[in-house]
């Protein structure tokens, strides 16, 4: 087993200008349109990620928040190599991984694991739990004996709070929380360093959410794991993260340590988002009400992607795309208003 990534000063994961575009225009014939009496070929694309850059240091829990369709899941999948990026770079442990052949990517696949939102869909319904857990182990460690594999699976099963008896059962025999434990076990079984967890608790009830969150936090402590945690539930994010990135329409608005972000949000969108979080036992405070609707990522707005809904947008925001700039206290914000000191 590899030693956990030791150098805490260098980022474990570094993402530079990452872009991802999905072509949704279908076949050649679907792309044909008639314009001014002329037949043209036009592609319809979804700009899911626009030049996203960030670093994750070892041991961090880096959360990505944003509303549905903002590109946070795409970001997770592109980082881990499930989608090839259309631009930019992904570095892991100092090595660029987005261009690696699948054979050279293999060791990284073991070190980077993913947990999905819907354990119903991500577990093969026809395989027993034991097979589900053994499969990645055998794949990444072909030299392990059957006994070693069995021991390792049992060990992980106990770590995630499961029962050894679970191993002989099929996924549908479990509740949602139990299934999510199994998928976390599947990620942990190969002893990874870095886990991308895409909405791992969204499908679960409150009391079960707590179980899974605790499990994730325990695993982080015991194994020195680094997380990229994708979620829309801000109070959960606030609870477990060290740093938070806020996404809107495929772009990062703000990246900050969790304390700073929740205490002093800079970006107008972050402010609106935070004000909307329902808080237990607090009567309705004033929500920042955004104007308009979320535009489609097919036709991205010019300038700042948020300008159409921003209460503070001015002419520059319509024209110029704001850079993600570092503030005095280390908070990164992509907002002309913040830069200009207007906000």
């Amino acid at each position, binding site marked *: 087993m590899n030693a956990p990534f030791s150098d805490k000063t260098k980022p474990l994961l570094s993402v530079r200008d990452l872009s991802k575009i999905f072509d949704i225009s279908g076949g050649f*014939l*679907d*792309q*044909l*349109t*008639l314009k001014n009496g002329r*037949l043209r070929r036009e592609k*319809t694309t979804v700009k899911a990620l626009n030049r996203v850059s960030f670093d994750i240091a070892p041991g961090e829990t880096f959360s990505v928040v944003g509303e549905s369709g903002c590109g946070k899941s795409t970001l997770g999948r592109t980082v881990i190599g499930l989608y090839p990026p259309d631009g930019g770079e992904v570095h892991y442990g100092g090595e660029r991984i987005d261009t690696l052949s699948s054979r050279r990517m293999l060791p990284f696949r073991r070190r980077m694991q993913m947990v999905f939102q819907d354990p119903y869909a991500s577990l093969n319904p026809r395989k027993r739990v034991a097979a589900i857990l053994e499969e990645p182990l055998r794949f990444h460690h072909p030299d392990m004996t059957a006994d070693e594999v069995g021991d390792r699976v049992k060990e992980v099963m106990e770590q995630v709070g499961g029962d050894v008896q679970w191993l002989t059962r099929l996924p549908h025999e479990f509740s949602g929380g139990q299934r999510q434990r199994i998928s976390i076990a599947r990620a942990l079984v190969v002893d990874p360093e870095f886990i991308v967890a895409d909405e791992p608790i969204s499908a679960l009830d409150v009391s079960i959410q707590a179980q899974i969150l605790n499990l994730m936090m325990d695993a982080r402590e015991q194994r020195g794991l680094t997380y990229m945690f994708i979620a829309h539930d801000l109070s959960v994010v606030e609870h477990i993260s060290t740093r938070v990135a806020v996404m809107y329409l495929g772009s990062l608005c703000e990246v900050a340590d969790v304390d700073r972000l929740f205490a002093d949000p800079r970006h107008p969108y972050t402010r609106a988002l935070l004000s909307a979080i329902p808080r237990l036992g607090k009567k309705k405070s004033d929500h920042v009400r955004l104007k308009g609707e979320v535009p489609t990522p097919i036709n991205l707005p010019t300038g700042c992607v948020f300008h159409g809904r921003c209460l503070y947008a001015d002419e520059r925001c319509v024209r110029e795309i704001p850079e993600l700039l570092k503030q005095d206290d280390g908070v990164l914000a992509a907002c002309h208003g913040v830069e200009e000191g207007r906000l």
Partner: protein
Amino acid sequence: MVAFIIRRIVQAFLVMFIISSIGFAIKHNVGDPVWQITGISVSKAERERIREQLGLNDPVYIQYINFLKNAAHGDLGQSYFYKKPAADVILDKAPATLELVLVSSMIIVVLSIPLGVYAAIYPKRIFSRVVMGGSIVGVSIPVFLIAIMGVYLFSVHLGWLPSFGRGATVNVGGWRTGFLTVDGWLHLILPSLSLSSIMLPLFIRLIRSEMMEVLESDYIRYAWAKGLKKYRIWFLHAFKNTLLPVITVGGVQLGITIAFTILTETVFQWQGLGFLFMEAVERSDTALLVAYLMFVGMIMVVVNTVVDIIYGVVNPTVRIAGTK
């Protein structure tokens, strides 16, 4: 819309090309047409001469290239038996089949909708169970048997309906129709019922299961919660949504009905395309065979197009593919 039309045209050509290739590939397995157009005592040498004349001794690819060349000019070859251009024969016989399929489709629609809807709304009632049981029986009886039983009951035994053929037809602008005479309608009853017996049970089951699924949906529950009257919920809210999958599946199925006319038309000596095809196979009338396949392929494309358009009309969320 432009893309839609272009795509359909391209698709039609592609279908024609593929089907004609398949037709060509199988035509040599259908048998040697020369045997069918000469008496058996004709000498081998004579037969060989005819074969040479008809170009049947050319390599298959040459024959195919010649065929494509002619097809590009709208000439699909000569029907050996009818001694006419195959395309003319097809167009001549198409009205009979199209009328038969049309009436069968109407029967299917008119019967399957009320029965399927009823069985979905009241799945436990005796009548629903009878309908569903009957539909299983209907699916399992071959159409040929249904047709023959129909003939023996209604023509031979009761003497109510004619046993074969189209009866009196009227030529309206080159379209020979049986719709304009009482006799024509009488002749249509048995064949169209037999033909519809294939798809009717499927449609009843399809409509029932789709309707039952729709009735379970949130928006139907919501419609109840709005205090709407049940008929509005069933026949507007639920039925319109039931129609969507039924149109998609049903449109294709009705297209397939054309293929089933082969059986029905043979039994009823119904002089349409299905009958023609059967005869073309038996007579090794290969040009006709290929022309038939191409025509049916084209009908399928047309049916698909119509289905897509209807679907787009009924379902506001899907405008015709290619329009954005």
